[in-house]
């Protein structure tokens, strides 16, 4: 339908993506950043950018990774070299939509998310809300992200966004 409601045919995919996203959230919320690249293909694109950039077609990324080795380097740097205060993170993801599933096996989907951050001795803050714009492909072990662009509404980051979203 014009307003893009999913055909039942795509429902199974939607449910599978929900499970993928929940596993993805669990890894990040547990701080297991070195497992995070497992969710991506070798040639994956990963980018976090503000809605102002996305709307204007500006290419910059708060985080900008082209391919597995850059994903691994991001994980390595955060895990091994970067100094930051300890924190808890928690994601809420909802409203997964499958926009299309091409014969080439590429699945376009989106989901909304909220990221909550809690620092020692401070109240939980809403670090950002945004939307994932995803392209999935099917690997041996299930879905993998060929592309995830995280577009956040909360243009003003509070201090630092340490981990991927």
């Amino acid at each position: 339908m014009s307003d893009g409601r999913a055909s039942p045919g795509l429902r199974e995919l939607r449910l599978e993506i929900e499970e993928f996203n929940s596993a993805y959230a669990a890894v990040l919320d547990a701080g297991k950043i070195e497992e995070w690249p497992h969710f991506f293909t070798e040639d994956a694109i990963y980018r976090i950018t503000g809605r102002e950039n996305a709307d204007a077609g500006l290419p910059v990324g708060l985080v900008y990774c082209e391919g597995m080795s850059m994903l691994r380097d991001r994980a390595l740097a955060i895990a091994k070299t970067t100094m930051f205060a300890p924190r808890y993170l928690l994601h809420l993801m909802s409203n997964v939509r499958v926009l299309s599933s091409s014969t080439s096996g590429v699945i376009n989907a989106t989901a909304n998310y909220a990221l909550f951050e809690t620092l020692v001795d401070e109240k939980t803050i809403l670090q950002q809300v945004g939307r994932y714009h995803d392209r999935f492909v099917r690997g041996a072990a299930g879905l993998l992200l060929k592309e995830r662009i995280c577009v956040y509404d909360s243009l003003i980051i509070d201090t630092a966004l340490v981990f991927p979203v």
Partner: protein
Amino acid sequence: MRDGVPEKPNEMATDLRWPAEGLSRIPDWVYTSEAIYRREIERIFHGFTWNFVALEAELPEPGSFKRSFLGPTPVVVTRDREGVIHVVENRCAHRGAELCRAALGKATELICPYHQWTYDLAGNLAAVPFRRGVQNQGGMPNDFRLEEHGLRKLKVATRGGVVFASFASGMESFEDYVGSEILRDFDATFDGRTLTVLGYYRNTIPANWKMYHENLKDPYHATLLHAFLVNFGLLVAGNKSAMVVDASGRHGTMASAKPPDGPNVDSAAKKEMRAFSANLRLNEPRFLDYVREFDSPWSVTMQTIWPNFIVQRELNTLGVRQIVPRGPHEFLMIWTMFGYEGDSEEMTRHRLRQGNLMGPAGFLGIEDNEAMRFVQQGMDRSRPAQSLVALGGREEGTTEHIITEAAIRSLYRHYRELMDL
């Protein structure tokens, strides 16, 4: 801000007298006092300074406008029909509404939404609806002159595609304001090529705005805080580097040259740097490559142009940063990342990949923002005290080495004069 900042004990008691030790000490209250903050707005941001407000590339055509700030004060930057750039205060002359709401846009005039008073792109009041009333009733008095009720206009200076503004009249030129040494590296970045905006980052830092200047006048921290730089050979104590300070002491350029042949950490330095760990290797080291494109001996220059502007030339990833103070305890950073017209797609992507170093999610940016937060919390929550700025002894001004706080002392010599402290 996160939780409300706890009251600083004794602050009111403080008599704002500078410590006897002079420039080797900075008292907490320059970072925590509301009274000091208000004086800074008046004497610094609203005073005799050139403040960054925009890149010309953000105003590509006649009618382009941008919401911006001068200190905490909202302004609008416009390009008029003739292509001339204007900066006006974002406050309607009628009832005071902050009239321009969009971050960026195009318009033929500025219209206040409340009663639709209309200003041209230079800020002149062009029309007042029903100025003559209706059916000979009401309207503005006959002695009302449109030309007396425009938006407040600011002085404008541009160089190399960068737009600065000032509330002060009789400002010296931007070139005289920054001085030749600073200008050299400024021109190396803004070298006449047309800029193309690659995008924006915005973040708050729960710290006093001056800490951002201090952080970039403190080359000492780079080799200690930033393990990434050290481990991947971008900066190591002993590499060729300089901390340039202008004659006034307020501006600076932190410069370094990437060692051509990768990390070269002498063992003496190693043992000083806990950050160093010999066995870390990047999977994609090429994203740190430096493609020579600037007429400069330096592969990295970070320029601090007082009071609200930073120019980042970190290898090939380029950006300008605007400081928007929000009281003594918080400031907003607005980052505009850019490249040049004519960059190949690969060069643009190289700049974007290198962007992972900087910004509020950058390998270095995260660390600086966190460190500044820690320092402000120390100032806000500890018993009143002062910080120690004794590296390099009493030396001030430009230095060719990085184990010094000379540039911070130079800044505070200037600051104390300006602020009568």
